[in-house]
């Protein structure tokens, strides 16, 4: 097993381009998405109606431009003089927007929530309404954590899948399967070898998004790392499994629309219970869904690590299942 791990690391070091791809492509994607979706110089303009004075004071300290009320709520939104209106009704805080624009919504709700949490840490979340369009969703900074999960999964999957296929086309797989090594040892060696790379990647990208891009990680940073690393291991095992059904590198790439794209759509970016025909239930088959769920809890909702233990168990279980499946599939090379 150690032999396989050493070999994979040496191969990686000799193939600098792939190494750089795995380590830095997720960082590049996160940076790009930061500029595309994220924290632009945009300062939301809001109006306040029936908001208690202490809340107003704190909101003024936030990165918001608070405009005086110039008319009826809907009129203001219609005229687009303001991006959103905050009002209190039966003890709940409401945010009303012109239309669903996840960037604006997330920016406003982030600022407002930050403010409210200063007064009451247990304050209920915002009730968001739209003048046009309707959504029950609380699209709260929905892009960051999903990209984090998807990008990391995608690149590890790709590198691992291609490496396995290459191993099979070169004949090295058949060759070393004729040495006195157990099938399970082979799979474990692969998993740990590529897994090491995946761990480095996860740590790098998480640290980067937190400290350079300033993505808010409200909950446990360690928890985020644990989820990312587990997801990366799933990606290695998945890549290995899929490569069994591919005859060359190009065929691995053909799996991207089948394996990766549905995972992006069903990652929780769009609430799965809203999808018709029960399609959303497919998400329960997707490792990225569980990871994104946990990342959402940890990063956005600030949940403690214990709350994502179910996801940790599911991802670990998936790794175990894929491990067994891979071990069985190696029978193709050696019947014992």
């Amino acid at each position: 097993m150690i032999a396989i791990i050493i070999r994979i690391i040496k191969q990686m070091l000799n193939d600098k381009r792939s190494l750089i791809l795995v380590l830095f492509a997720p960082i590049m994607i996160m940076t790009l998405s930061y500029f595309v979706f994220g924290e632009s110089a945009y300062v939301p303009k809001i109006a306040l109606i029936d908001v208690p004075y202490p809340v107003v004071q704190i909101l003024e300290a936030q990165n918001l431009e608070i405009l005086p009320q110039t008319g009826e709520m809907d009129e203001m939104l219609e005229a687009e003089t303001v991006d959103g209106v905050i009002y209190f009704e039966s003890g709940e805080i409401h945010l009303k927007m012109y239309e669903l624009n996840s960037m604006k919504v997330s920016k406003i709700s982030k600022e407002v929530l930050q403010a409210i949490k200063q007064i009451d840490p247990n304050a209920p979340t915002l009730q968001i309404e739209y003048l046009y369009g309707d959504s029950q969703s609380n699209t709260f900074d929905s892009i960051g954590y999903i990209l984090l999960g998807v990008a990391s999964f995608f690149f590890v999957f790709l590198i691992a899948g291609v490496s396995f296929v290459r191993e099979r086309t070169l004949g090295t797989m058949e060759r070393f399967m004729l040495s006195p090594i157990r099938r399970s040892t082979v799979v474990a060696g692969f998993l740990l070898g590529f897994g090491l790379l995946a761990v480095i990647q996860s740590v790098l990208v998480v640290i980067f998004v937190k400290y350079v891009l300033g993505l808010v990680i409200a909950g446990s940073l360690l928890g985020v790392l644990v989820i990312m690393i587990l997801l990366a291991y799933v990606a290695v095992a998945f890549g290995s499994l899929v490569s069994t059904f591919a005859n060359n590198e190009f065929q691995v790439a053909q799996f991207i629309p089948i394996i990766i794209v549905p995972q992006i759509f069903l990652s929780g970016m769009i609430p799965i219970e809203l999808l018709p025909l029960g399609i959303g239930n497919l998400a329960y088959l997707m490792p990225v869904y569980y990871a994104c769920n946990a990342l959402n809890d940890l990063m956005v909702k600030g949940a403690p690590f214990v709350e994502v233990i179910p996801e940790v168990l599911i991802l670990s279980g998936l790794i175990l299942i894929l491990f067994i499946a891979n071990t069985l599939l190696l029978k193709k090379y050696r019947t014992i």
Partner: protein
Amino acid sequence: MSIEVKNVYKSFLKKIVLSDLNIVAEKEQILGVIGPSGAGKTTLIRLITGAIKSDSGEIFIDTVKVPNMKLFSQVGYMPQFDALYPDLSGWDNLLFFGRLYRCKGKKLFERCSKLFHFYDLYEEKDKLVYHYSGGMKKRLSLIIALVHDPQYLILDEPTVGIDPVLRKKIWDDFRDQAKQGKTLIISTHVMDEAEKCDKCALLYKGELLAFDTVEKLKSLTKSNEIEELFFRATEEQFI
């Protein structure tokens, strides 16, 4: 210490590749598997190593039925196409396979440098295999089959693309290995290599044309050359 192939049949995609094969390779001997391309040489070799399963019939190595976990450590296998990692140096390729056979530490390093010296590759050991020439890859592949000093050597066309000087050296080494008590099975389509074997199994279109000592096979021909047996087989087909 012999390898026995008993009544082996093998077909791929409904095409019979080997039919009713019976061969024995003895200790201290070199068994040549001779035949034109497509005769079934590689299939036979892969059956013996345990890489593929026969449809029927059995193969025994030292009375143990193939495949068997314990046998793997006693068999050295060189596939027809160089199964090497192009993104590793020759040295790292050898170390990897050596470690799989549980060779370790100083002993492994000594064994590796001895083999690299013997096959004139020592100077190139730190180059990536990607930059190796065809002949160099072939030699490295052969070295890998030898790294754990196996009792049984099963080599699929080991000398293709190797120059005549080195080829002679390699065959002398095969002979030395046999003298040390090893059992060798070597496939080739080069007839003059057949003469360097003790016994030859002549394969033609998946069937065993002849299996005997080299002298005996030669005595069956007018020209005293084994290839005559193949020419005869080809002619019989057209009659």
